[in-house]
């Protein structure tokens, strides 16, 4: 995992676990707020994709895992593609363009401990997603078996299942990175440089 978050050209120190945990809380609070807002405004009609876009943007800029940006290194290391074309002006102005340096490539590769952590985070995330799917099935069966519950949960069935499916997909995209950011201890600032007298 990286110790710094590069955002709009600014470097934010994220070596402390407390900071990373705060970021995770903020991201999930924002996603939950967005889900609530999208549902209350449009009942998912044509707007459910915004949640997935928001989750992907969170991955791109904060969480990482799938892109060069974010704190977690790409899960599946691929050598970055070299682009011959010059970057676009908006990308330069927004400082979104970062050339891939040879030194960056080494920093993008997970070592064996990080691969181990990655696999463990995915295992935990899949457990959580399994729980979400069980919840989905439970709600579906309860609504069928217990008609009073249908009155209690006012949401139409298709909206409810679509919402739960969106939440599951959001977890699928973000949870492994969030687990890594949550569990990785404070990073040592000094790189253990020793000197002989």
């Amino acid at each position, binding site marked *: *995992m990286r110790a710094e978050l590069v955002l709009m050209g600014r470097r934010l120190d994220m070596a402390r676990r407390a900071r990373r945990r705060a970021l995770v809380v903020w991201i999930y609070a924002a996603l939950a707020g967005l889900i609530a807002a999208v549902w209350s405004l449009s009942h998912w009609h044509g707007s459910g994709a915004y949640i997935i876009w928001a989750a992907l943007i969170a991955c791109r800029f904060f969480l990482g895992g799938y892109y060069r940006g974010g704190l977690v290194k790409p899960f599946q290391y691929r050598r970055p593609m070299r682009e011959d074309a010059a970057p676009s002006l908006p990308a330069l102005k927004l400082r979104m363009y970062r050339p891939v340096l040879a030194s960056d490539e080494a920093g993008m590769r997970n*070592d*064996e*401990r*990080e691969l*181990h952590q990655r696999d463990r985070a995915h295992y935990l995330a899949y457990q959580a997603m399994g729980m979400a799917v069980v919840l989905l099935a439970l709600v579906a069966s309860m609504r069928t078996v217990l008609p009073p519950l249908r009155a209690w949960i006012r949401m139409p069935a298709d909206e409810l299942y679509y919402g739960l499916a969106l939440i599951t997909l959001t977890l699928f995209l973000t949870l492994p990175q969030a687990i890594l950011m949550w569990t990785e201890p404070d*990073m*040592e600032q000094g*790189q*253990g*440089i*020793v*000197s*002989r007298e």
Partner: protein
Amino acid sequence: MVDNGKAGPGESGLFNRIAVLRAERGVSRQDLADVLGVNYQTIGFLERGDYGPSLKLAFAIAEFFKLPIEAIFATEPFRLLSEQVYGSAAGTKGLRGGGGR
């Protein structure tokens, strides 16, 4: 940990002498990490015993320090280096008497 050459077993259940060997040879974590092709944070995890290396990485560490693997990693706590060099009596006498008696 570093002063007596012992690292606690941590989560890995392995004791190691990486920190003391590194200090002895004046090698930074970053230097060692670069040679081994790992993140420097991983060296910290190894030294604290929080991560048990793969056989390949353990051999690479042994190769780097030019020592047999069992001199660096053990499942039992290492003896103090002072005990190993001067014997157990000398080690404890030095501690108790401050070298005056």
